[in-house]
């Protein structure tokens, strides 16, 4: 594969730009070897059965960000949650934009991976956590090999991040086709709490491929809320690899709102390492055109008395394809586990496709595990009811679809974000109604 060879040979050039004596570099060199061996996944692999990367890998991407492209805030304001006071870590074409960002070192660290990897001050955290939970598959290893920039968030013991953190990646396309590989590390220590919103946005019609890796560590009793907004344009593809390690009694939730993009693949992995943990995975997917979204989730229960809740809703129109591949593993030590998984889908067109594969692998007997999956249509009677009361067909449909996705939206804890998502859904469904009735 051309792109693969290009990447492997670029590694030498990449080494010139980083400190090769840093311990992190050993991890990089090992990772490039793993990537060289494993390469990109193909449809022959069970986990990639329904998603082919061939179409997006054939492009000749530029691998390194060359110049700093400036953006004016007023031009990209709409991509921010601007009515909310937040910390911001903004990247333009893979380079940090200090102009648009707002970082802090006051009690908590909200800053950059590049400085965390090079400054001694961060060394203990990097040594303890960097690349510790990320798996060694081809794509993740590729990211690890070229890991240099991204968001670094460190919340020490007993601290509350005083406002939410936005991580935004822009690609301007000024350097034609781009491959971006952000690497994020989020460490939340005991009893701490953080809310993070992540977004990838392409500002060009040139193809962009993002292969992102995020590692999240939630220590005892920590609370992490992570929101992913995926509403990119139709030439941007995203492979998002998120790995979350949870300690006792921590609560981690990840909400994925997939409304756009060309091919989007979410590899979302939760590893529980203590008792009394709660993991929450929610998603709303609304697609049309030829968009393709693949949610690939894993929750691994290893200790007793933990819970996990998954709720993915999907609405697919035109030629869109949706994939849900959810896996729950319950080790034999993990007694009294409660694991729930639900995947509901609505197909609006005969050309749209849904492939769903909710899997349970259970080795403990005293557990409550269930999964449910449905594929269906909007209720004709409910539509008729609304239309007979003077609500237009389009609006009636939109209302029903909104109601369908609602219980996922309800669990969004930031009101401004909830409002923003409501608006995105209204746009997506082509109606002009405020849903926060």
């Amino acid at each position, binding site marked *: 594969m051309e792109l693969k060879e290009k990447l492997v040979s670029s590694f030498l050039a990449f080494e010139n730009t980083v400190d090769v004596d840093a311990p992190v570099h050993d991890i990089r060199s090992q990772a490039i070897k793993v990537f060289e061996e494993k390469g990109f996944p193909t449809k022959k692999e069970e986990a990639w059965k329904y998603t082919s990367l061939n179409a997006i890998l054939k492009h000749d991407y530029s691998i390194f960000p060359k110049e700093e492209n400036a953006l004016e805030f007023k031009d990209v304001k709409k991509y921010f949650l601007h009515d909310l006071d937040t910390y911001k870590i903004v990247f333009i074409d893979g380079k940090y934009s200090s102009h648009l960002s707002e970082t802090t070192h006051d009690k908590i660290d909200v800053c950059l991976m590049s400085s965390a990897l090079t400054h001694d001050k961060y060394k203990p955290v990097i040594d303890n956590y960097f690349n510790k939970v990320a798996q060694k598959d081809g794509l993740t290893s590729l990211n690890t090999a070229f890991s240099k920039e991204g968001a670094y968030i460190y919340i020490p013991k007993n601290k509350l991040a005083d406002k939410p953190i936005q991580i935004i990646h822009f690609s301007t396309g000024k350097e034609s086709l781009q491959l971006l590989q952000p690497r994020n590390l989020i460490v939340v220590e005991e009893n701490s709490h953080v809310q993070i919103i992540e977004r990838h946005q392409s500002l060009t019609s040139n193809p962009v491929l993002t292969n992102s890796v995020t590692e999240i560590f939630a220590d005892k009793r920590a609370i992490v809320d992570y929101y992913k907004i995926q509403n990119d344009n139709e030439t941007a593809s995203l492979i998002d690899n998120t790995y979350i390690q949870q300690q006792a009694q921590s609560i981690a939730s990840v909400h994925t709102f997939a409304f756009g993009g060309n091919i989007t693949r979410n590899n979302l992995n939760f590893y529980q390492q203590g008792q009394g943990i709660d993991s929450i995975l929610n998603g709303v997917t609304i697609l049309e055109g030829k968009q393709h979204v693949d949610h690939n989730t894993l929750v691994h229960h290893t200790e007793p008395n933990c819970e996990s809740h998954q709720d993915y809703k999907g609405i697919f129109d035109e030629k869109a394809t949706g994939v849900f591949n959810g896996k729950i593993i319950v080790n034999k030590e993990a007694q009294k586990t409660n694991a729930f998984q639900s995947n509901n889908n609505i197909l609006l067109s005969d050309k749209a496709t849904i492939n769903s594969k909710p*899997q349970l692998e259970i*080795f403990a007997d005293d557990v409550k595990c269930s999964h449910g999956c449905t594929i269906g249509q909007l209720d004709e009677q409910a539509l008729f009811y609304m239309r007979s009361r003077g609500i237009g067909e389009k609006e009636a449909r939109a209302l029903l679809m909104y109601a369908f996705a609602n219980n996922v939206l309800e669990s969004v804890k930031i009101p401004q974000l909830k409002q923003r998502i409501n608006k995105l859904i209204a746009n997506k469904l082509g109606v002009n109604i405020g849903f926060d009735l």
Partner: protein
Amino acid sequence: MAYTEDDLKKELETKEYEYGFYTDIESDTFPVGLNEDIVRAISEKKNEPEWMTEWRLEAFRVWEQMEEPEWANVNYEKPNFQDISYYSAPNKKPKYNSLDEVDPELLDTFKKLGISLDEQKKLAGVAVDIVMDSVSVATTFKETLAEKGIIFCSISEAIQEHPELVKKHIGTVVPQKDNFYAALNSAVFSDGSFCYIPKGVKCPMELSTYFRINQAGTGQFERTLVVADEGSYVSYLEGCTAPSRDENQLHAAVVELIALDDAEIKYSTVQNWYPGNSEGKGGVFNFVTKRGICEKNAKISWTQVETGSAVTWKYPSCVLKGDNSVGEFYSIAVTNNFQQADTGTKMIHLGKNTKSTIISKGISAGKSQNSYRGLVQINSRATNARNFSQCDSLLMGNECGAHTFPYIEAKNKTAQIEHEATTSKIGEDQIFYCNQRGIDTEKAIALIVNGFSKEVLNKLPMEFAVEAQKLLEISLEGSVG
């Protein structure tokens, strides 16, 4: 003294396979190994016409190119296919008219299995085509069936006597190159059953075949073909037990069902082959390809109770080709000790208004692994397709595993699909409730398991339901931890 769960567990572990015995009948066996000559020799031995030999050879050539599938959630030592003898038939190949003529040892075997032919003749009205190793040695009730025009015989007989029917249908549902084991079976199948129900005929009795694996070191390659012509109905029973043996025995059967317009086929299986001993040694490898095709308004219903075999790899499927056709799958899979089962179904919706129902109950105990793997596929032209799937697992003890791998693929907006799966154990409160009312723990468990499996047990024909319940009890009593 109270009978504790530990006692039960101990008893269960030490319980040897009830039907583990070996019948000493002389048989002529081919040398081990597989090549074109062996395939030719099998075909020749059975006096097959040229087209059949060619068909086998074609399958063999495809098989040589294929690799053993590895995707199933089972671990086992792969059989060496060159180390198996591909043909064995009881030496005396008699055509008996009465039971007196039957080899007394064979009759003894049946007695141990609890199938008394006389009794069955009288009570059940079941025509039994007994497959002992590979060649059928006893067929009863043939005459009654012949009156109706129903053909029910061994497949080798059918190849001789009804070549046009066999030629027309064989391999149409499961092609030779369908998968590794189907190709192997197509090349070397030794015998099996053939059944043809003419237009508009309702088969007056349950057709039944008992399979036995008997000869040491022989693989069993059964081929079953059931054709239900327009508007006909048949209920077909298949049940099996095997003698206990230390080396692994391979079984790769193929079953093809063809339900033409308005026809209905009900296919029930009770499988209780030797599962290996409590250390996981020995046991039968069961790699089966079962598939049925439904034409317009036709219905195929698979019911299975799987309690035996060391490794099971089995997915009875329905291709719902005709409009308004219906596919059903009811399954109970029980695994204990070191058994592994990867079983489920495929429902392929092609026609309009097609419906399918999947009810799967998995029960795992001991150190066993039990997986459900199923596919529901709605193609873009299958308007108004409907599917309901339910997969429940019951775990007993914390050394076993229950897994669910459902694949759901929908390409039509009018499709309605529901899938649900649960995993649980027998609640202490449930047992307590029974104890309180004077039902001891052992009985309580049997009761609860029976209730858990009731939806499937209800679908079995009467005689089978009794046998199946007994099997469940044998396999499970006391394994609650």
